[in-house]
């Protein structure tokens, strides 16, 4: 149950006043401390390292897929022989069922084990208490439990590679009855483990979300009203609400797959009068909010970084908040746009098309406000700013392709083609991942007390920017050319043979994108220990986390800060410095503009 239950009688072991103290050499050993600690900053780092591992793992799978798509049937050079036998044949070339496994695991891992933990686990944990002026989360032990549930779910997910039948190959959407009938998928154990992993992962998300919501509601420092909260906090707060409402539906649906596979129930099997489309409705009821779960925090982080490096307040702060709130609400009534052509009632498709178009409006508002933020700013080009700036452009490309698919007749043509793959990589990589990179660089000095290496940072940025577009832009053309998703060998279709050069371009891009990741990982791993020491507030930011200096003590603030105004008071006329921290009162002669 929740840690709140254990509060009675068992005082929580954390969040004291921040003074250092010896622990007399007894108690848990060092490794135990590493495994079980309740400090939100440490938990953020646990998530960071785990997710980085999964990024390399899931990304490497994508590279294997790209190899197969460009050179179908050719053995993967060098590492082909090292891959497990369920994935490659004796020559080291990917076999069709292995390709399905790669697609499935790539999608699942990058969504649930990379993007979510990075955005929510890392930045939710690290930033919420620091930005609202709290000593820790409301339930520190629950917070650590959330990490370990996450780790457990990762282990369950990976273990599916080694069970009889191997990992599932039914796509990250696991459409029933393929996923729910052993005779159809041949991987009942792997599929059950996949469901179980998502169930546990969901528990982790829910425990985390309970913590975030409670913390934001109850633990804001004096003066920190809701409308003075920095946008990343707003974004993650709203994301947590989406998690609470969306995840349990996936958990229920996944449990039903487990039952269908193992106990002979017929929820999704027509022979027992089950409904295959029931799974799709439940999955997408979760799945669509899920994609906004992946973009809202990214939007919040980006908004702040754009503001800091433009030395300007966020343009339309309140509009930004309301846009996020409406994205959250509307996100629950658009799931059917993934099912226009699934056999669902046609009128329902038409209705979902309207709501889908409407949900693009708040995204438009945000885009315009980002442009307003840099307008007449004094833009400083740093690595995090470069990623944040590109985020906006990449998100717009991904969003605009979403408009094509939102139109029902167009989806009749492009559904399940590479046009979709292009769309969601533009929003997931160009959006979420770019924002994650920006945020990792931006808060790196606060997380580690050190600066990252700038040269490596710029190399990472340029390679990522160029190769990302090289990889995913041509996929629009592939999709419009008729190339289907999730096929192991496009050359079996006559009409796709002539598109093969584009596939080669994508693959070259993907290899470059893989290489681009190396300077990133090297940079954060190396600079954590060896980077030059960072000042407390290297970017001259206004929010509370920059008021504490490294090492941030347990409990964060020696004295609980008081907040006097909104988060983004940059370039206020009449001040000597071009920023006014949230915990500093504006001098009498200065008037702050209402926001």
């Amino acid at each position, binding site marked *: 149950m929740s840690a709140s239950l254990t509060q009675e009688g068992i005082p929580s072991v954390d969040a004291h006043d921040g003074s250092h103290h010896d622990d007399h050499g007894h108690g848990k050993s060092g490794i135990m401390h*590493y495994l079980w600690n309740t400090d939100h900053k440490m938990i953020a780092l646990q998530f960071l390292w785990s997710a980085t591992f999964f990024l390399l793992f899931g990304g490497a799978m994508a590279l294997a897929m790209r190899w197969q798509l460009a050179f179908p049937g050719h053995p993967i050079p060098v590492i082909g022989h090292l891959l497990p036998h369920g994935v490659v044949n004796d020559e080291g070339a990917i076999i069709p069922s292995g390709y399905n496994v790669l697609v499935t695991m790539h999608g699942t891992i990058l969504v649930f084990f990379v993007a979510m933990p990075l955005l929510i686990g890392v930045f939710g944990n690290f930033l919420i208490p620091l930005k609202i002026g709290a000593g820790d989360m409301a339930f520190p032990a629950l917070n650590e439990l959330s990490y370990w549930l996450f780790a457990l779910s990762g282990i369950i997910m990976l273990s599916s590679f080694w069970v009889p039948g191997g990992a599932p190959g039914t796509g990250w959407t696991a459409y029933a009855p393929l996923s729910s009938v052993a005779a159809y998928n041949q991987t009942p154990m792997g599929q059950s483990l996949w469901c179980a992993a998502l169930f546990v992962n969901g528990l982790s998300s829910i425990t985390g979300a309970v913590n975030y919501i409670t913390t934001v509601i109850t633990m804001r420092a004096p003066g920190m009203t809701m409308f003075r909260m920095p946008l990343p906090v707003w974004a993650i707060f709203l994301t947590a609400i989406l998690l609470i409402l969306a995840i349990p539906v996936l958990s229920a649906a996944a449990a039903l797959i487990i039952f269908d596979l193992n106990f002979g129930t017929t929820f999704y099997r027509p022979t027992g009068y089950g409904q295959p489309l029931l799974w799709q409705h439940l999955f997408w009821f979760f799945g669509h909010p899920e994609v906004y779960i992946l973009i809202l925090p990214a939007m919040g982080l980006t908004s702040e970084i754009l503001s800091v490096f433009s030395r300007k307040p966020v343009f339309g702060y309140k509009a930004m908040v309301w846009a996020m709130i409406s994205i959250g609400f509307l996100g629950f009534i658009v799931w059917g746009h993934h099912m226009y052509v699934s056999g669902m009632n046609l009128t329902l498709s038409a209705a979902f098309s309207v709501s889908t178009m409407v949900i693009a409006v708040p995204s438009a508002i945000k885009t315009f406000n980002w442009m307003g933020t840099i307008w007449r700013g004094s833009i400083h080009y740093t690595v995090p700013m470069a990623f944040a700036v590109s985020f906006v452009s990449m998100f717009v490309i991904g969003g605009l392709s979403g408009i094509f698919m939102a139109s029902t007749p167009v989806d009749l043509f492009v559904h399940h083609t590479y046009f979709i793959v292009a769309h969601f990589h533009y929003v997931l990589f160009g959006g979420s991942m770019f924002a994650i990179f920006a945020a990792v660089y931006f808060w790196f000095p606060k997380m580690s007390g050190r600066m990252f290496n700038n040269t490596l940072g710029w190399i990472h940025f340029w390679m990522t920017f160029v190769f990302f577009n090289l990889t995913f832009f041509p996929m629009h053309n592939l999709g419009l050319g008729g190339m289907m998703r999730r096929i192991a060998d496009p050359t079996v279709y006559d009409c796709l043979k002539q598109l093969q050069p584009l596939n080669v371009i994508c693959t070259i891009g993907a290899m470059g994108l893989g290489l681009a990741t190396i300077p990133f990982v090297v940079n954060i791993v190396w600079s954590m220990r060896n980077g030059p020491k960072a000042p407390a507030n290297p970017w001259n930011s206004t929010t509370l986390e920059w008021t504490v200096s490294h090492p941030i003590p347990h409990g964060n603030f020696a004295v609980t800060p008081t907040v006097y105004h909104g988060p983004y008071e940059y370039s206020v006329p009449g001040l000597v410095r071009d920023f006014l921290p949230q915990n500093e009162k504006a001098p009498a002669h200065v008037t702050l503009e209402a926001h």
Partner: protein
Amino acid sequence: MNNAAYNDSSLFHAPMLAEVSEHDHHAAPPTPPATCKLGMCIFLCSEALLFSGLISAYLVLRESAGSWPPNFGDGIELPPMPKLLTGINTVILVGSSFAFHGAEVAVKKGKSGARWMLLAAMMGATFIGLQCVEWTELYHEGLWFNKGGVYGSTFFTLTGFHGAHVCVGVLLILWCFFLQVTKGTFSPKRHVALDNVGLYWHFVDVVWVFLYTILYLF
């Protein structure tokens, strides 16, 4: 442990951890009760969505099966749901909510309330027992997870999910009971864990009323 609480290679070794120890002398004050309850309520929201997912699955399947119990055209007659026995069971479960409430009131008045807790737990256990009887009977009448198509699937899954929640609830109540009997943990000033178990228990009961209505009565 070293004394450098937060040294430079901190992120690889255990940095802020040196401060956390089992013998934490300056333990922070426990999280305020209102915060704990808020956390519980949020958690229950997600529980509610879990059951909503299951219930909507049931409704959709039932709606699309044509008749209920569905007619598979194989001549096998599917048993109807035992309304009466479960009706009594429903009363017992709802009654246990009141019993638990009695415990909360007693504790707030400065009494032990342990007997009320025990009563609530016993009533919860009775509910589980009767459900087991019912499951066995239905099994012998030819209904099970894998029998009777969606009719069996939905019934056993929904009641099973709920039953698991009841089991957890009974264990939680027993835990409160033992804390109270052995340590006298709960007092008019300190009873947030009790309140939270109560919230959970009432929630589970409310869900049951819904389930009883849609699974048995209609």
